[in-house]
């Protein structure tokens, strides 16, 4: 992690839907190569915030720069510089492993020869040589998930957004998955991850906890525990979320 280089910078970022304020003037910074955990109960405004950062949704007010690009005017550049993995793994089940990799690489405009090279390298790295021609539907869940993550960083983005990437997966597979995340972060990709699992929050360099559209706490897991005098992340989260308009 390199605190000299800011890759996500949000200032008073706000999104209103009519009278409802989904995110209320949130401000934070994320540094290059950092694993940034974005926590919050359902409906706390995580998804809305993430959509603004991805360039999918125009903020109502405030500013944000993603990889140096403005979320109002440079959404195209933002999209080219980020990767995204949704909670549903988002691979095509009726396409083979190789076809999925080629498709997602293809829509990022990767050159055919480069893509072929990257496809082979990826299949080899994940140990999927014998499954390369199989349909994704036939892969076990853990492998699908690893493949989905690898596909989301295939075009070497500067930031990858992971939206609850480990939902419904067993703890062992989750650990293996986090090994991949560390590997990506070590190579300089910034990881922005939302999660419900408090043990995963501990894996992050820093976390922010959203409550009712505001950032209620931000810091390293250790600092937050100390600050709120709680022995575990569970306690931290519960103490903060208890004050919400709608208890989770």
């Amino acid at each position, binding site marked *: 992690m390199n605190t000299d280089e800011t890759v996500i910078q949000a200032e008073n970022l706000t999104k209103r*839907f009519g009278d409802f304020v989904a995110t209320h003037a949130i401000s934070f910074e994320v540094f290059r190569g950092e694993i940034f955990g974005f926590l919050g109960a359902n409906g706390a405004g995580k998804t809305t915030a993430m959509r603004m950062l991805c360039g*999918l949704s125009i903020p109502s007010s405030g500013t944000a720069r993603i990889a140096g690009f403005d979320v109002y005017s440079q959404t195209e550049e933002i*999209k080219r510089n980020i990767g995204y993995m949704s909670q549903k793994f*988002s*691979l*095509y089940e*009726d396409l083979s492993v190789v076809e999925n990799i080629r498709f*997602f690489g293809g*829509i990022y*405009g990767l050159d055919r020869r480069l893509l072929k090279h990257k496809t082979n390298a990826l299949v080899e790295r994940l140990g999927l040589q014998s499954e390369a021609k199989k349909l994704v539907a036939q892969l076990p869940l853990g492998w699908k998930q690893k493949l989905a993550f690898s596909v989301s960083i295939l075009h070497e983005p500067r930031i990858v957004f992971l939206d609850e990437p480990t939902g419904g997966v067993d703890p062992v597979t989750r650990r293996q998955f986090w090994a991949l995340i560390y590997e990506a972060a070590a190579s300089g990709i910034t990881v922005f991850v939302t999660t419900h699992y408090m043990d995963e929050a501990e894996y992050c360099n820093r976390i922010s906890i959203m409550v009712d559209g505001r950032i209620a706490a931000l810091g390293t897991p250790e600092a937050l525990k100390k600050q709120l005098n709680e022995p575990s992340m569970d306690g931290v989260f519960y103490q903060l979320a208890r004050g919400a308009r709608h208890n989770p």
Partner: protein
Amino acid sequence: MKQFLTFVRKEFYHVLRDRRTLLILFGMPLAQILIFGFALTNEVKNARIAIIDPAKDHASRSLAERIGASNYFEIYEDVTNRNRMETAFKDGKIKLAVVFPARFEHDLMHRHNARIQVIADASDPNYATTLTNYITSIVQDYQQELTGTAGLSYRITPQIRMLYNPQLKGAPNFVPGVMALVLMLVSVMMTAISIVREKETGTMEVLLVSPFKPAWVILSKAVPYLILSLVNVLSIVLMSVMVLQLPVAGSWLLLFAESTLFIVTCLTLGIFISIKTKSQQVAMLISLMGMLLPTMMFSGFMFPIENMPLPLQLFSNVVPAKWFYIIVKSIMIKGLGFTAIWKETLILAGIALFFFIISLRSFKIRLDEY
């Protein structure tokens, strides 16, 4: 452009790997042509008819025997005069009556021209036409035989009267109808489902986050279905030419150009549905109830629009299939050119444009709320 082709290829993988989709795509037109072509219309067997023969001479009897001997007809013996015939028609006991003149043989032999009356119950116009055609051909056979043996020309002129529906309105020429139906199903339902499926599986999110433009996502969904629908048009037309012996009277090029326009209209409808719905089931239900049903009811293919109450007649104007049905009938059956159908073409194009614009607008709104 390369990204676009990548996407289109992926779409083809989806279609070609899903057996159900393939079945609907290619099995359905085949089944419908065969069902409509053979099971529902042509074959008439043992239709009850009456023969009223006041002449009872040699010629009239031998013609009556020929009619009775054919598989198509069964002679209903109770009806021997015109009054009885009336009631038998009304009670539905007979579908057709052949009436000989009092001096049939005399007319035939001496004036070389005899008339017989063929009266059909045309409340089912299709059936009535088929029956009268059979009678006519039996009469012609008989006439040729007479001419052949005697070396003289004899003419028997069947005078056909259609009861209840003299103009045979709504006689379904079903091929244009099947075309409208199949295209509607393929282009509207399949497109809607395939887009909504991406929403359900979460892949849509990934596509939207990618630099590939949202409008292109939609467009590259539409292209494969445009191509597949054109393949369908070709297969239906080929089948109607080869299996049903119904030739294309007008221009093939015009037929395909108009079909493309209709497919585009359907695609915009499908895209509109997919933007407004979140699950495949809802998309399918809306496509079926909102599109397929009106297509069957209001295209004029199954039920004549002229007989409907005025509000429904007015409603039929917004059903794209109605215009397409008129266009295809004009080209395939009447052999008319573009000048005869430019109005219908314009209306279809208008509907397509309308849905294109509102889809585009609601898609933008959707993106922000999604």
